[in-house]
């Protein structure tokens, strides 16, 4: 089964960008969402992301990411909207709870930012081979390989963890634990005891990975060991300029 963050092979513009540029672009787009206070700019970033996803042939996945974030967003939106007391009251509810125009605007921005900031990271992971990220950081930025490797491993473990968690939940459902409940809070409460098996299997895994890496000369690796070069091309410059424009717009408005 394929996780939502796994690499999708391809040869689109986005795929062929230098991994470092992809990384930078993702961060610039995230940053743009947070420096701006303009709802439309944030919406624009989301639209830009979807357009990029379309060009890389992974629009379906981008929409799935949005959908899976929607539930959490709705929850955060509700919490936020009742929390903000400043501004003109739009709707007064019993127990002194009210919804204000500022609250509405703030919560909306908050949730839009969450969606807009999560997308570029997800997209970046989808179009980048995981081993390219540490490799390019070592080759182009001179980051010590050991740190880069840990970063790469962490990224690679996300889908493995997700898979393991799904397997654990499946096993627990099959023994009668009610994970198939619709109640979100109940589900969270049921998840807590499962941290133990997840931890056990993760520790075993990481241990195995560490030994295997050690045996394949992990400690011998130097900066010059990389096989791939990751040269920069014109398209990388274009992508960076595009990112800079988006950030500039965000700062200005």
């Amino acid at each position: 089964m394929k996780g939502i963050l796994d690499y999708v092979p391809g040869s689109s513009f986005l795929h062929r960008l230098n991994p470092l540029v992809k990384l930078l672009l993702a961060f610039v787009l995230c940053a743009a969402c947070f420096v701006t206070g303009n709802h439309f700019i944030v919406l624009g970033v989301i639209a830009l992301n979807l357009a990029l996803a379309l060009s890389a042939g992974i629009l379906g996945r981008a929409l799935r990411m949005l959908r899976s974030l929607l539930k959490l967003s709705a929850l955060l939106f509700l919490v936020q909207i009742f929390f903000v007391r400043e501004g003109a009251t739009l709707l007064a509810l019993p127990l002194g709870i009210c919804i204000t125009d500022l609250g509405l605007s703030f919560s909306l921005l908050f949730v839009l930012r969450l969606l807009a900031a999560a997308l570029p990271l997800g997209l970046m992971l989808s179009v980048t081979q995981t081993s390219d990220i540490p490799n390019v950081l070592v080759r182009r930025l001179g980051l010590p390989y050991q740190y880069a490797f840990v970063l790469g491993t962490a990224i690679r473990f996300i889908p493995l963890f997700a898979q393991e968690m799904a397997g654990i939940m499946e096993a627990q459902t099959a023994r009668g634990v009610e994970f198939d409940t619709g109640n979100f809070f109940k589900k969270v409460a049921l998840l807590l005891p499962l941290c133990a098996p997840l931890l056990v299997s993760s520790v075993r895994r990481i241990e195995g990975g560490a030994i295997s890496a050690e045996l394949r000369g992990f400690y011998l690796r130097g900066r010059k060991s990389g096989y791939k070069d990751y040269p920069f091309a014109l398209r990388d410059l274009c992508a960076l300029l595009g990112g800079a424009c988006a950030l500039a717009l965000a700062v200005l408005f």
Partner: protein
Amino acid sequence: MIQLKNLGFRYSGAERLALDGIDLTVEDGAFLGLIGSSGAGKSTLCYALSGIVPHHYRGDFYGEARIEGMDSAEHRPEELSRVLGCVFQDIDGQMVASVVEDEILFGLENFGVPRDEIEGRVTQALAAAGISELRGRLISELSGGQRQKVAIAAITALRPKIIVLDEPTGELDPRSSRRVFETLKELNEKHGVTIIVVEQKIMLLCEFAKRLAVMEEGRLILEGEVPAVLQSAGRLEAAGVNIPRVTTLARALREEGLYGGKLPLNLDEGEAMMREVLRPC
């Protein structure tokens, strides 16, 4: 060549010895099957061969393990791994990359193999494992058998003289298991690689391995050519090791006084035995 002399090891905090006075010599070009019940010390022996014991896992270590003349207590695992490669049980845990090619490159890059040599090594390792067509594929999309072969190719690319595998067919179906062993056989016969494989599936060992070593509670209780070891079927059963059904049948026939020949190891030999037993007078 591997020489183990009175090798012993106790994990720190453990009560009993995981390895207890192991004496074993593995010649160049051998295909050795290592068998025994769980907890018998098979995995620890693999660790000791690769230097993981005593360098990674600490504990009381005694005796001596020489891999191609290198004393494992003095040489670090990454030095030993230039001559001895390991493939472990958890296939997914030992992968470091998401694409097949990168997985093979990892070790080559680490060992600083010259760039102009890398391409040839990758191509050859993939071909030797019979997975040339998988080069650009995502590891997560491969079947268990294919992933196991990727793990093997990642090791063979480093051209070790010896490869140690810990239950490589654990989760595979009969066909994929056979294919993994066929790959090992080819490495052994065509490329002269010494193979040491821990395996529970006795039938595969009977077919592919040349020698068998049996472990029980940290000790090596039997070692020799496969047919010779199988002759001590009773000793194997006591150690919790499965034996082929034709061998069980032969022992039962012996008890009935119907058969006095050597114990059969596979179907063909079993058939020959039965034809002899059932021969009309």
